[in-house]
Every structure is written in structure tokens, then in C-alpha cells.
């Protein structure tokens, strides 16, 4: 039976395995953002990772549309690939926003760096959960991973809200105010995209058999 199973490894399973390649790139990009927050790193490195992710997503899209995948799963798989690529795009956008402007007020700058750092840690954890989720093929386990990612995303929402509160409360100029909002949104987008990807993966795995 093992030989037959190998012969019949479906296109769907192959695609899912390769989607984890995009998630790994997202983890790599997120680690680079954490370096950026600490004052090191480079946006160029993250841009390179983002381009790699686009290439992988393009290749996977061609595989999905080229055949070997059950037709009723094609749209869902394409959406999953797109959502996972969006994670890397969001990380890249976050890196660009962080690099765009330096808030003059040291205290506000420090709080912003700490909160974004925390959100990046949450993104790290969410990406790890997503990676493990996509290695699993038992629905009960997948649902647990999805629930964890949802909790992490909610914590990210709380941090985002706290940044908005800080932007409104603090004595800042317009540029700083706008910068805080943009950075908070982009950091939150990373977690949102992780949650969306997990939802999509659960949808696909729930619908493969039944």
C-alpha cells in the first residue's frame, strides 16, 4: 500500500507541502524585520525574500491551474497561495514603513519599537503555528492550530489598539501620528494574513473528503 500511496500522492498534498515554503520565507522575512526594529538589518534583504515568495507563489499557481488538482479545490488553493504570499508582502510593507520615518520623540519611538517588536514576536509564533498546521492532516489538530493563531491575532489587535491610543494621547506632529498608524496597520496585516491563511487551510482540508 505504501508504494501505491506514493504513486497516488495527489497534487493537493504536493501543493500544501510547497505552501509551507512560502510560510518559511515569511518567517525569514519576519526575523529580518525584528533586526530592523533593533536598528540593524536591511529592507533590501526583505525585498529579496518578498520577490522569492512571489516566484514560489507564481510557480504554485501554475501547478494548480495546470492540472493534477481536483477541480473543486482549484479556487480555494489559489486563494490560499495568494493569502500566504500576502503575509510576506505585509512583512515587506511593514519593513518599508519602519524605514520610512524616524519619530523625533525618543519615548514615543521606544514605545513604538517595543510594541512592534511584540507584534513581530506574535507573528513569529503565528507563522510557526501555521507551518505546523500545514504539516498536519488531522482535522482536530488543524482546528487547534487555527484556534491558537486566532488568539495570537487577537493579541495583535490589542497591541495595535494600544498604539492607536498612544498616537491620539501623545503630543505628536502629523508625520509621527501617521507613521504610528501605518506601522501599526502593517504589523496587524501580517497577523491578519496568518489568520486568513489558517482559515483557508482549514476550509480546504475540511472539504477535501466531504
Amino acid at each position, binding site marked *: *500500500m505504501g508504494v*501505491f*500511496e506514493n504513486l*497516488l*500522492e*495527489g*497534487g*493537493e*498534498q504536493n501543493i500544501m507541502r510547497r505552501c509551507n515554503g512560502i510560510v518559511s520565507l515569511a518567517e525569514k522575512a519576519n526575523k529580518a524585520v525584528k533586526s530592523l526594529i533593533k536598528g540593524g538589518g536591511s529592507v533590501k534583504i526583505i525585498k529579496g525574500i518578498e520577490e522569492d515568495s512571489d516566484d514560489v507563489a507564481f510557480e504554485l499557481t501554475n501547478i494548480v491551474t495546470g*492540472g*493534477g*488538482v*481536483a*477541480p*473543486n479545490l482549484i479556487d480555494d488553493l489559489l486563494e490560499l497561495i495568494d493569502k500566504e504570499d500576502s503575509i510576506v508582502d505585509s512583512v515587506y510593507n511593514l519593513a518599508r514603513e519602519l524605514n520610512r520615518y524616524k519619530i523625533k520623540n525618543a519615548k514615543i519611538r521606544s514605545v513604538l519599537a517595543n510594541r512592534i517588536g511584540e507584534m513581530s514576536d506574535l507573528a513569529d509564533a503565528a507563522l510557526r503555528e501555521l507551518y505546523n498546521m500545514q504539516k498536519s*492532516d*488531522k*482535522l*482536530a489538530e488543524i482546528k487547534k492550530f487555527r484556534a491558537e493563531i486566532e488568539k495570537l491575532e487577537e493579541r495583535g489587535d490589542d497591541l495595535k489598539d494600544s498604539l492607536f491610543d498612544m498616537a491620539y494621547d501623545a503630543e505628536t506632529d502629523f508625520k509621527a501620528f501617521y507613521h504610528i498608524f501605518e506601522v501599526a496597520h502593517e504589523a496587524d496585516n501580517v497577523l491578519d494574513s496568518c489568520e486568513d491563511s489558517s482559515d483557508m487551510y482549514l476550509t480546504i*482540508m475540511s*472539504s*477535501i*473528503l*466531504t
Partner: protein
Amino acid sequence: MLASTAILLFLEFVIMALVSGNNLSVCSGTIIGSRMTTRRNGVLLAVLGYAAGFLLEGKLLRRGIYAVMPVRSTELIILALSIAIVIFIIAHKKRVPQSLSVNFISILLGISVALGFRVDWTFTIFIIAFWILAPLLSVLVMIPAMRKASGAATGWHIWKAVGRIKLALFMLSFFTAFTLGANTLGFLYSALPDGASLLAIVVALAAMLFGGVFLSGAELNRIGSEIISMRYLNSVVSQSLSAFFVELATIVGIPLSNTQTFTASIYGAGLSYKGRLMSRSPAISIVFTWVLGALLSFALAFFISLLLL
């Protein structure tokens, strides 16, 4: 005599080729459509299944034939096949689903009644009852079968399960073709008068190959996409049930349409979903056209027999 036999064999070839091509989508449509295999391999699997079923169990359908048409001559069967082919082609052009088994029995019955043959009405009514009960049972059994299978599936390792289901689907595709070869193609062969047996078998096998390769159309499009989208578990359960009923019918000697039972089981799969969005109209129109097709086939055969014979 030779000319009649030649015409008979030609018509046999035509109708068997049409049936083989038309029903291939029921047999191998799932494994081709879900891209488990290429069209070429799917066709080959189906043709092999047809041949195996036809050769091993085709003769079992004689009982059904003798019940509706106890007297068969070359001329009568030529007439019956001609009417059947004309109806089949018109229905195909108009993209109206028809059951050859139902129509052909109706045609034979129409001829028998017109010519005053002693029809075995008990068995004929049994055949009709089976045509009604088998699809109904398919629908009814599918609902709990799918719910049980879906419930069990939540605990499975999905990729392992998918691999096994795909293997099962390959085997089922062959078995579905086997049951069609035995039932529908065997039934057509059984209608032939004795004396042309070996050549008729060769012609039948050639027709299966020709029909499978050149005439396999897209009838499953209506069945698959207009009623509900097929998933692996749906496919394996509905195809199993459909093949089971056709095999049961073959053993009893009743011609039964694969398309009827398969359509019914797919409908049953759809009904088993709690949150379903299904269109009733294709199912209703399919049932309506089947019944109408049977009645028209009977009427046509009856009146043509009265006129010509």
C-alpha cells in the same frame, strides 16, 4: 438472410458504440475529472471493464429480454435497434438525457404488444418497479451513508484517506464499467436472435473500443455540475451504491441504467449535506425526460410495428 445479419450486426455496432461512449463519463468521469488519471487511461480502464462485464455476465440479461419479447427475429430486432438509435441520436443532439435500457425495453414491449406476443407481465412489472425503486433507494441510502462516512472522516489522516479513496475510485471505475458491460451492453447482446453469437461478440467488443475512444462525450457535465460538485468521499460512496444496484439488477436479469442510479445517488449525496444549496430543476427535468422517453419509445415502436408488420 446474410444482408439481414449484416444490417443487424451493423446496428449492434452502432448502438453499442453510442452506449459505450455515452456512459464512459459515468464510469471514468470521476477519475478523469478530478485529474487522478489521463483521459486515455480512463477510457482504457472503462473499455476493459465493459469487455470483462459483457463477457462474464452479459448472458444474465436474457431473462429480461425473454419476458418482454418472447419471440425475436432478425427483422424485429433490426426494427427495435433502429428506433432505439434514432431516439438516442435525437436525444443526444438535443442534450436530453435518456436511458437506453428503459427506452429499449419500452421499444421491445411496444413491438410485442403490437404483434400480440405473450409478454411476461409479472416480470415486466417487476422490471418497472425496480427502475423506480433502485434510484429511490439510491437517494435514501446515500443520505445516511454519506452522513456516517462524513462523521467517520473527521478522525482520519486526510492524505492517507485521500490516497485510499483514489485507489478505491480506480477500482470502482472499473467495476462500474464492468456492471455497465454486463447489464446494458449484455442486455443489447441478449436481444439478438441466436445464430450470430460469436461474430456478434466480436462486433460488440469492437464497438466498445470505438465508442469509448471516439464517442465518449460530456454527459456527466449535467449530472456532476448542475446537481452538486463531487468530492472524493461523495464520489466513492455514490459510485459504489450505483454499481451495487446495477450488479444486483444484472444478477436478477433486469436491465438497469447506470446513469439513473448514479444520478440518484449524487442527488442523495447532496441531500445529505446539512447546509445545502441544490437546484431541484435538473433532477426533476431528468426524471421527466426519462419517463417521457420511455412512453414515446413504447408508442413509436407500437405504431411503427402496426404499420409495417
